[in-house]
């Protein structure tokens, strides 16, 4: 798949699959892993919070570890700010993404 096709496919997926917003904030000892990505060291208990927000019916499911809730109020606030930003990213960019797709699809040279 060419880079441009890849871009169009991603945009199309994003513009049609926006029913849920998944925000995760997780904490632990991190390390550089063999594949070059940053990940958690093995054998530890990960603390954190995960929110699944259904953008159609408004349901919000949040799972949070007790220690995280009690000991890291700053991170809980940070997580809430991420939820707001997640909404913003969608709200701000969805029209732009749709415009890109429509513009390019309407061009005679488009694939």
């Amino acid at each position: 798949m060419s880079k441009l096709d890849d871009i169009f496919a991603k945009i199309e997926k994003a513009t049609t699959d926006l029913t849920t917003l998944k925000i995760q904030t997780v904490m632990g000892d991190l390390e550089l892993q063999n594949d070059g990505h940053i990940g958690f060291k093995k054998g530890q208990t990960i603390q954190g919070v995960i929110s699944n927000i259904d953008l159609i019916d408004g349901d919000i499911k949040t799972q949070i570890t007790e220690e995280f809730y009690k000991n890291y109020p700053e991170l809980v606030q940070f997580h809430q700010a991420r939820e707001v930003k997640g909404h913003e990213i969608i709200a701000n960019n969805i029209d732009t993404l749709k415009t890109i797709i429509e513009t390019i699809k309407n061009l005679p040279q488009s694939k």
Partner: protein
Amino acid sequence: MSDNPDFIIDRLDQELATLPAANNESRQHLIELGYIPLMKTNALHSIDVVKASDQFLSEALSSGLFPSAEIEQLKQQGKDYLIRQLLRKATDIDEGINIPTLPMEGAVNLITRIIHYRLDIFGLWPHAIATRHTSINTLSQLKVIAGYAQCSPLEAINFLSDMEAFTRRLLSIYEEKDFILTIHSQQVSGDLKKKLDRRFAFKRQLIEDFGDRNDFFIFLRKHILKERENKIDFDFLKKEARNDFKQFIMRLIQIHQWQEGFYDGLLDSNMGELTLKSFLDAIDLYNKANNRWIKPHRIITYVEDGYFLFNALFFLQEYMIEDHAPQQRKEDDLVLSAMADNLAKADEGTQLAFQQNMEQLKKEIRQGAETPPKERKGFLHRVYYGIKRLIKKAAKLAGKLFNWIVDKVKEGWKFLKKLFTHFFEQLSEGLKAFIDGIKFLIGRRAIHTASENNFIISSFSIDGDAVSLVSTGAVQLIPSHLRQVNYWVGAMQFSLAIAGGVLKIIMQALNALSWPILLFTIIKVYKNISKSFKNLQL
């Protein structure tokens, strides 16, 4: 140009890597405004720049000098861009910031720094820029300018935000004779003195311009512009060369020359070889631009013993004052369109010459941009980054610029370098936004904040999902990480809009565009989208 869009996207990515970086501009402005002490200039560490940038941003945001809508619009292009643009505005003396009131006694803030910076440009600030505002130091110096411009100290400092308006003001107040200046410099080479020794031609021109209008001109003819040295009144020349107002006008001209890129020496009131040569460069450029053949003696002549006479009245009126009101955006578009139109009509050989010489401009600009600001003899060796007058002049020359590039015209090269510095900057911002937008479209985008062994990484995808990995003990990084993320979220909307605009051009005009035309078109997309985002904010 290739008809493969992937190839074009990759080549745009490569193009970005070859464009001049803008790091040195912010560094220079931070020194000019006293956020970094001048004496640190030649041994600057990146941590100094980061700290100074943060202090500047904090003072700028609380100064009340920048409308919040403008701040929001600039934030869309990222923190570095925001800081650079605010710094440029704070140091602009073409269309600089209007200061609403003079600061309180003892204050140190962005307003006091701007006042001291403007005085420093004129050689009227002997203290550190970050010195506290006091009646004794600041007001007494402001009163010098206020005296010359016959206005209040507050009006005076605001006159210095617009050199053209300030020059008009002085021209309207003072008599013709006040603009016939005497320069004394023993540092000028014998060759240049010989070249400029046209005292009789200069005298004829004075008679033509001013006749017997007053005793000053009669005196110059009878006692100064003489062939035999013993007939020259050197006491008069000595007194004239030390005339405070005339020295001030000379400095004003040095500043004009610096703003236009003709003079790249120190702003130090030393009217030596470089300053004199900059006059000749200006005359050459305007002759070339206007198809006129004004000779150097129309403006300057060497007399004797290191003394020169300079007709600042003609120089300022002819070259430093523009007739029309500023319409920068339209004028900017006019220049870009004229170049793109000429390119589209040109044959293959001409297009190739244009592209090669544009690459040469880029190379030379990049070399200059990589040279960090330097301190020399207690002065900052600096570049002027304001663009208002540059663009106004470029619009007047729009019809000629294309051929100047193709033919690599010597007289116009410095001007082209200054103009293309501006274009390459816009291209660089446009391409950065484009690449950033494409990266976000292709995969997740990660924002890192790190300090020692602690870090936070937040990654985002276009469907709004986010994952934040926080290392144990990184809680204290949350505020700075949040700020970074907020900047990025704001910037992403802009980047996606640019990516959309550029992708559209690539798809619409495959095969029909030459590479330089594509680059000019990207600059126009960038400008138009910036404008629409600005209007949205307003």
